């Protein structure tokens, strides 16, 4: 046979013969035929492995070569190097233990190499998850393979050397391999990543193909060969330094703790105690000097603490950090608040790596904090058990001296719970040590069916304050030796033993097991009864019925019933359906219109639609859930539809119905058919939108700007436009009048409810919606709220209002500095409350300008946003206040808000005139006059206060 295209070097490993077969089979199954498998057997190879290799060599002698070497078996590097020397292929590829080449891998690599002339061709690889059930690509691989490409500079693909990308899934041109003579480091253990990094810095061209090349790599075992890994890391650092790639070295130093050390910390609770101690000792020996201080300080706080404690060899401390990592937001150490206000993980020398001020625990009191309660001892004797543990207390808060504690056992997913008092409580400076004895057999009396799992937790009561904590235990604390007898109410046939175990979330729980023959027999019988064929059939049938039921509840079905049946119903005169922001709130202009209707006593039957929750909606009104049958029924029969965003697009409007679209704000970004996304959509989708928009009979506008933008973008005919301004803004005029006559204080009941005090000014932060349609979820706010609070906490209270489609995830801040008002239904009230506004592109800026109060635009991504979404005008040119593009600029503005603001009064007035010309404070009245004229009785026409204004 002529020289093969690709030689695959395979060395046997801990996986033995089975792993070897997997790898060799995957090579023989390659779609590229000219591939050889080069199996290198070390000196002391297992006989079964040798036999397996021999079988392949016999079966496909031209494609499988077996190389017997006298390499030692425990260092695969020696065998691999022997393989590299013996390889004959144009390209050489090394497969690890049990790794499989995908079927077209060699063809892909070979083609890419030939087409691009690259000396190293690398592709994606995946490894098994911890439970071995699935494959998973390392998360940084997306950044390395955005597209297939060729790189000549490592800085274009830093992940190649920053992360351990080149450990598998790549091939090297043999000519290049011989040129620079790279070999695996024979003094390093199996986790050797130096070879790939050395190859990457030595070759000229690297082709990256976005194809999975290798799968089935063994799951990452963070505790395996720590010393070897650290040494490999050190060598790669030196290699990069020697090549003058200082920036890459620094990047690697930042990535290494996250890739290797944090997973090790994370794995700690699952390791046995001896192994934890051994690892900590190894870490203390090899880690110092490995993670430079600046790199360590770039890590998030808990990760940083974990790495630092690992470095110090503090096995118990690492266990605590692991708990804080696995249960975000819990306190796992006796935090110490120092004199300068900084918070340290625990007492001792000040150490910036142990500074966890930014977690914000210091702002929370006992009862609000989730504390680590570590179980330290578990003993079982007959039916009784002895539990000992320690509840961590941070220095700044704790229960009073009269606190009592209970152990509670609760059925998982059930309501039943039993509790017993904790006998001994000893409080000291850093926590509470406790001890409890329980007669498990008599205390826990399960029925025996559906309540076989019980969770344990502890409750500390101090007057009205309760602190609940699960019992955290390392996984080896309890085992088969700690069983207790059980007495289910159904009798011993339902189960006979309590087995304590540690859950995946690391807390103590109990499982009812069947250990003795009678119970085991019953279990088997029950299992058979619930799993044999008729039972399976029954389950399938039930599932099918469920699917059918779901179909009857689906929107598609409801829409068809709505169109074919509901629309035939006669319209009920005087009935109106209100909806604001697709049912998420009771607010905005529909609310203002509704209140005006009520105030003037119009005989209308009003119905409000709500989505998800009724909270915040007026109790006395008729409420219907969005998309319920009742909702569709009301819509089909309503004489008026009033909404600010759009009733479901697919629903046709009944012929006798009037649709008042109040709309939810003037436009800065392009909307409707001016929006790129809509323009590029296919014709049916655009028609759907157009039909939905053509349902509007009245559309409120605030200025000619709205006519030019919104009305044009949605192709609304002139006759639908009502030039009244927004009813929601009427309150702003009232507030402004009050400002001018009596000043802003006192602030009123809402301020009291939010806990705002008078000596701090109120700043409302209301950024715009960033996501596309349908994507809900928590997103980072553009503004670092905690930094704002830290700097201005004594002067300003920040109200944060995320967009109604998003929810903000706010960091913990000192009390009274940051308040989340995203749930508040009426933005108008918040605007009135705020002494200043920060926003970016949200339409609240148009409304707030009417109040003539300071307004700051914080738009860090102004240019990209305007380029991506498109805008109707240049924000910088027309801005009603200072435009800050960085956080520092924003803070600068707030340092001297008054001075910054005085320069903008003229601009603000012009802005309010241009974008809110029709807003005069009587919009609700005018809208009711225009839309509900038919229902206005003579009395309500004469008694209104708006009359004399005209």
């Amino acid at each position, binding site marked *: 046979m002529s020289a093969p295209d690709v030689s695959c070097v395979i060395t046997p490993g801990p996986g033995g013969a089975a792993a070897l077969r997997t790898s060799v089979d995957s090579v023989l199954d390659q779609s590229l035929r000219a591939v050889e498998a080069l199996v290198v057997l070390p000196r002391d190879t297992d006989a079964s492995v040798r036999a397996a290799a021999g079988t392949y060599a016999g079966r496909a002698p031209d494609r499988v070569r077996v190389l017997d070497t006298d390499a030692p078996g425990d260092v695969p590097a020696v065998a691999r190097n022997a393989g590299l020397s013996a390889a004959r292929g144009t390209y050489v590829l090394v497969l690890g233990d049990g790794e499989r080449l*995908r079927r077209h891998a060699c063809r892909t690599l*070979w083609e890419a190499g030939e087409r691009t002339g690259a000396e190293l061709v690398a592709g994606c690889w995946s490894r098994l998850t911890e439970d071995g059930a699935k494959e998973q690509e390392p998360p940084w691989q997306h950044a390395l393979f955005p597209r297939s490409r060729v790189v000549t500079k490592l800085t274009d693909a830093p992940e190649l050397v920053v992360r351990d990308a080149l450990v598998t899934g790549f091939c090297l041109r043999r000519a290049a391999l011989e040129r620079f003579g790279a070999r695996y480091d024979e003094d390093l253990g199996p986790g050797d990543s130096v070879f790939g990094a050395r190859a990457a810095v030595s070759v000229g061209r690297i082709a990256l193909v976005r194809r999975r090349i290798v799968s089935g790599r063994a799951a990452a075992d963070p505790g395996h060969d720590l010393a070897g890994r650290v040494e490999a890391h050190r060598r790669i650092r030196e290699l990069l330094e020697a090549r003058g790639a200082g920036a890459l070295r620094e990047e690697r130093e930042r990535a290494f703790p996250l890739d290797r050390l944090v997973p090790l910390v994370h794995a700690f609770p699952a390791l046995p105690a001896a192994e934890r101690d051994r690892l900590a000792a190894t870490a203390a020996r090899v880690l110092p000097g490995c993670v430079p201080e600046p790199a360590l300080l770039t890590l998030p706080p808990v990760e940083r603490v974990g790495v630092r404690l690992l470095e110090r060899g503090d096995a118990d401390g690492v266990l605590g950090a692991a708990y804080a990592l696995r249960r975000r937001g819990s306190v796992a150490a006796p935090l110490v608040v120092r004199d300068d206000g900084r918070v340290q993980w625990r007492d001792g020398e000040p150490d910036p790596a142990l500074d966890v001020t930014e977690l914000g625990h210091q702002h929370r009191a006992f009862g609000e904090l989730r504390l680590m309660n570590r179980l330290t001892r578990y003993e079982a004797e007959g039916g009784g058990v002895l539990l000992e543990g320690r509840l961590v207390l941070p220095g700044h808060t704790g229960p009073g001296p009269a606190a009592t504690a209970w152990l509670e056992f609760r059925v998982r997913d059930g309501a039943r719970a039993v509790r017993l008092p904790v006998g001994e409580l000893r409080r000291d400076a850093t926590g509470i040590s406790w001890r409890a004895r329980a007669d498990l057999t008599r205390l826990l009396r399960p029925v025996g069916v559906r309540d076989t799992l019980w969770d344990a937790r502890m409750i500390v009561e101090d007057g009205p304050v309760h602190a609940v904590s699960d019992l955290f235990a390392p996984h080896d604390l309890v085992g088969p030796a700690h069983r207790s007898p059980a007495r289910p109410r159904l009798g011993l046939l339902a189960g006979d033993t309590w087995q304590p175990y540690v859950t995946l979330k690391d807390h103590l729980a109990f499982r009812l097991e069947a250990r003795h023959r009678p119970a085991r027999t019953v279990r088997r019988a029950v299992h058979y009864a619930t799993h044999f064929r008729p039972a399976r059939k029954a389950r399938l049938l039930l599932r099918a019925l469920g699917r059918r039921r779901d179909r009857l509840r689906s929107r598609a079905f409801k829409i068809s019933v709505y169109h074919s049946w509901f629309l035939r119903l006669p319209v009920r005169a005087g009935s109106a359906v209100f909806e604001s922001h697709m049912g998420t709130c009771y607010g905005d202009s529909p609310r203002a219109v509704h209140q005006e209707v009520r105030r003037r006593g119009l005989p209308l039957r009003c119905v409000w639609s709500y989505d998800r929750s009724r909270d915040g909606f007026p109790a006395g009104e008729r409420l219907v859930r969005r998309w319920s049958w009742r909702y569709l029924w009301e819509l089909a029969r309503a004489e008026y539809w009033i909404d600010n965003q759009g009733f479901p697009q697919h629903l046709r409007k009944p012929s006798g119905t009037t649709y008042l679209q109040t709309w939810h704000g003037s436009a800065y970004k392009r909307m409707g058919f001016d929006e*790129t996304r809509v323009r590029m959509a296919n014709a049916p989708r655009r028609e759907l939108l157009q039909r939905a928009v053509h349902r509007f009979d009245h559309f409120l506008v605030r200025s000619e700007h709205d006519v030019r933008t919104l009305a044009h973008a949605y192709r609304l005919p002139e006759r639908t436009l009502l030039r009244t301004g927004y009813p929601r803004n009427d309150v702003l005029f009232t507030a402004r009048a009050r400002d001018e006559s009596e000043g802003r204080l006192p602030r009123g009941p809402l301020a009291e409810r939010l806990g705002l005090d008078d000596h701090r000014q109120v700043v409302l932060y209301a950024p715009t919606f960033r996501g596309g349609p349908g994507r809900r979820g928590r997103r980072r706010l553009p503004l670092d709220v905690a930094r704002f609070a830290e700097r201005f906490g004594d002067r300003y209270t920040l109200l944060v209002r995320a967009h109604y489609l998003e929810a903000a995830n706010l960091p913990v801040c000192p009390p009274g500095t940051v308040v989340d008002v995203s749930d508040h239904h009426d933005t108008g009230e918040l605007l009135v409350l705020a002494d200043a506004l920060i926003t970016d592109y949200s339409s609240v800026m148009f409304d707030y300008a009417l109040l003539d109060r300071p307004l700051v635009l914080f738009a860090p991504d102004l240019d990209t946003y305007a380029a991506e979404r498109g805008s109707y005008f240049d924000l910088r040119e027309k801005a009603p206040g200072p435009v800050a593009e960085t956080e520092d600029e924003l803070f600068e503005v707030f340092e001297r808000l008054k001075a910054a603001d005085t320069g903008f009064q003229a601009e603000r007035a012009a802005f309010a005139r241009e974008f809110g010309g029709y807003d005069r404070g009587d919009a609700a009245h005018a809208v009711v006059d225009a839309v509900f004229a038919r229902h206005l009785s003579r009395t309500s026409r004469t008694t209104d206060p708006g009359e004399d204004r005209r």
Partner: protein
Amino acid sequence: MSTGRDVFVVANSTDELGGVTGWTHRTAHLFQERGHRVHTIGVHAAELTMALPDPPDYPVTALYPAHPPTPWEPQGVRDRFRIPSRRREAARVKAKRKAVERLSGIFREARPGGVVIVTQVWAMEWVGEADTAGLKVIGMSHESYDYSRASHRYRWIKSHYADLDRWLVLTEEDADDWAGDGMDNVGFMPNALAGLPPVPSPRTAKSVASIGRLTDQKGIDMLLDAWALVAPRRPDWTLDVYGAGEDEAALRAQCTGLGLDGSVRWRGRTDDVPGALARSSVFVQSSRGEGFPLALMEAMASGVPCAAFDCAPGVREIVRDGQDGLLAPAGDIGALADRLLRLTGNPRMRDAMGDRARTGVQRFSEAEIVRRWEELFALLER
């Protein structure tokens, strides 16, 4: 290595009006020229036939005389027991089996090293069932990944094409996307440029040309909106819209509504594309979706610089933005108008880009593409 192979090109139809049929015969002809023995097979012969440039010098086979019936899917319980439906279905299955056997027979006559190229997804239903032992089977797609993803073809492709020897798409970017969905056998092969006009356009006429069917996909409505921004500033320029289609009336109405009747000329369908390009200086494409647009390549071959929406990887592949044409973010009318203004306002840029485009687009010349096909055949044999 062009010592003749047996190459079977399988399409939905042998002579249906459309781009793929044109591609099929053009490619078949090229392979024939290179000494391969080509056999073109269509699932059926079409009623609306396409005028082929010259009678093919290779065998053409249609498996069915007309479009075969679609598989029967019982609608409700009653239909399940309807005997005529069942008999029709049985007849369809029988006819299909016969067609597959005929196809297998054709394939079996091939000598070693033969290749089957399936140009369309539907035809794969027959090839997949036929006996292709000893042959390499290549599946092809003539649309972008996103376009397939949005259609029912996506699942079909994933289940039927994953086991082929090669799944060819138009660009490397599309290939990467398919690979991300687990199609490891994916490769890419651009369409070939049919021919290079001997003389490039003089680029003297003040005319912007658009060539394409007047359907929603081609986005002429957006072009008119963009032109409404351009026309007032380029009063001496005209927009020449070549092509016909279902949306013509609506588009003309839109044109009148925008007051563009003076500067837009509706030229109707043309068979003389190089001639039309010779009469214009700028080419514009405002499509909502594309594969590997031939019109764009033809314009560039005529030395006419292009302004286009960056709506698919194929467009990015053909036009290197800023070098031999200008791309605008898809759907951004202001940006497209801006590109048109830049091209119409600057004759030197037009000339430079046009010349570069004419040279650059030759990387998709027929000779080059055939060379890549030969490479692919060799790769599949290794």
